[in-house]
């Protein structure tokens, strides 16, 4: 079993699937020869040729719009948007066409396509390189939104995404691209889209996180368990849309408390949705108001002030303590 980081697992999954399925095509700005600015597609052009792995002009609407046509015409494009902050020129294509082609054609056309993009802050990047825009996609009917947090999940989820009949927005937490390694099985395995994972069982409170914040939450939880004796159930959401209500409600019914942790800005963010789900599904079991620790309702600051914005271990810990004491 190869030991891989998140980027390695991505490349690995793409490589295996391209070998298996000749209809998979990979492209984007710098995605061909260079293998992308993060090297997620490194080596693929060499292996599969320029017809299946290639660079495009600098035009996101062109990348995503052409993927729509390609998917209609029998291929499975996996396109790369260099940073989530730069998907906005393509947002019109994503919302107006990717999300509703099935609807508009009464299911005659389906769009098996994946739009990959690195997202999130904490890496001291310039402007527009740090946002967490998952809500912008999850809010649009017709899109599935997936965020892996480990190399194992990256491979399993990406394979599912490519094999999915519907378009998938695959968001990659760039802060943990190379943060750690894990054994990733060689064999073909998939992780179902729409299913959350209970990372750790616990009794006192349910914490839901995804992407880079799963690690941040894990750290907080470890300290809390050791120092305060608080037992936390941690759920990695894995799929932002559709949300796995069942796993969350079941957990909250057991623990009676709920905290969602996300890096996206607070207002109208995914936390609001999750808390509504908990209120609807487990209200009578609650012993404290369901709550959230999130990014702030401001433009993500430049690196020198970014620490003011980021969700860190301490903020998560404080909130858990507050909710458990409530």
């Amino acid at each position, binding site marked *: 079993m190869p030991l891989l980081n998140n980027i390695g697992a991505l490349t690995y999954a793409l490589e295996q699937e391209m070998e298996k399925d000749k209809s998979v095509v990979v492209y984007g700005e710098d995605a061909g020869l260079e293998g992308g*600015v993060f090297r997620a597609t490194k080596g693929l052009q060499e292996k599969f040729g320029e017809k299946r792995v290639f660079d495009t002009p600098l035009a996101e609407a062109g990348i995503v719009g052409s993927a729509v046509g390609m998917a209609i015409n029998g291929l499975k494009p996996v396109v790369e948007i260099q940073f989530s902050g730069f998907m906005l020129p393509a947002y019109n294509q994503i919302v107006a066409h990717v999300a509703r082609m099935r609807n508009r054609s009464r299911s005659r056309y389906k769009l098996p396509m994946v739009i990959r993009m690195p997202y999130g802050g904490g890496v001291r990047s310039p*402007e527009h390189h740090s946002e967490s825009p998952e809500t912008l996609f999850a809010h649009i009917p017709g899109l599935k939104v997936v965020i892996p947090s480990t190399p194992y999940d990256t491979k399993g989820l990406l394979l599912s995404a490519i094999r999915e009949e519907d378009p998938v927005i695959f968001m990659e937490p760039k802060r943990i691209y190379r943060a750690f390694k894990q054994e990733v099985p060689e064999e073909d395995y998939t992780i179902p889209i729409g299913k959350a994972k209970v990372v750790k069982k616990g009794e006192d409170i349910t914490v839901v996180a995804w992407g880079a914040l799963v690690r941040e939450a894990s750290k907080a939880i470890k300290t809390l368990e050791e120092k305060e004796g608080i037992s936390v159930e941690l759920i990695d959401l894995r799929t932002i849309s559709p949300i796995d209500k069942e796993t969350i409600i079941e957990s909250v019914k057991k623990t009676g408390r709920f905290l969602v942790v996300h890096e996206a800005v607070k207002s109208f963010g995914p936390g609001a949705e999750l808390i509504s789900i908990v209120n609807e599904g487990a209200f009578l079991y609650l012993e404290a108001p369901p709550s959230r620790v999130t990014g*702030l*309702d401001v433009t993500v600051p430049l690196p*020198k*002030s970014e620490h003011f914005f980021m969700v860190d271990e301490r903020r998560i810990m404080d909130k858990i303590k507050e909710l458990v004491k409530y």
Partner: protein
Amino acid sequence: MIIDKFNPLEDEMISILNKEGEIVREDILPEISDDKLIEMYKTMLLSRIADSKALQYQRQGRMLTYAPNKGQEAAQIGSVAAIEKEDWLVPAFRELGAWLYKGISLEKFYLYWYGNERGSEFSENEKVLPMVVPIASQLPHAVGIGMASNIKGEKDVTLAYVGDGGTSEGEFHEALNFSGVFKTPNVFVIQNNGWAISLPRQKQTASKTLAQKALSYGIPGIQVDGNDILAMYAVTKKAVERARNGEGPTLIEAVTYRLGAHTTSDDPTIYRKDEEVEEWALKDPLTRFQKYLIDKGLWSTEKDEKLREEYSDMVTKTFKKVEKIGTDTELKDIFQHTYSKMTPNLEEQYESQKKYFEGGEK
């Protein structure tokens, strides 16, 4: 005049000063006062030094990601020198020379790349738009400024920059189209530096030149040697005159070269050959202009050495100052410019973060 006569489908790019620093087109040599020539050269030199120091600081782990300018000084300073104080500058993100010539301090520029919000605080009469990272999205703003100038009956000209990669974005085309239709007083400069990260210009677009793209919008397009500061100045000056006379926009393709990496996070050895870089290094705009000035008796190697030292000191001091300012960032900085007045929601978040950060380390 050169712009209207130029056919981007057939004519060769405009050049006045050759590699050796000699004048090859006396007929279009622009009239520039000696003082102005020196000022242009000084800005080039400052830009070059500040640029190389930024790279050095980045390698020392003292500066964040930075986009180098080496080799593109003539394309920037030659063009910006052709506008007046009351004209507008709409930069992309790689225009150190243009910022400096327009009077923005190096301190501000460094602060921005250092990741400090205060790098974006200019006085209101600067007429410079903020740095723009999403590629080509600034061009429609430049056109809007031009439309407003027309509506208000003002004679301001708006100079905007974009890269060769940027010419592929929809917003580039929408901006040019608007500009042609509304006959706005705009000058668009494409800094064609050969590459958009790893993508060479030939793979960016199938058109022979970038200047010829202007034709489809009904505006003149002209290709200029972007490493030749005199040619850049001469052509931009004419374009500015046209704009000011109500004759509408011009698209200038400055053919130049990115001698360094795309940014400090990039590794150009993956995609480009050393020979190409070496060949372009021989066309260095700085040495070319310096040679011209020395031959003209306006400059000397002694003066040059002295100024280099002076600038080097000045840049070092500026960076040290920036490092100091950078460490005392305030929490309020990230809240106060979201709305004209903090909303109750933001007040609440600010207060709570303040308590949080006062209670522990940053």
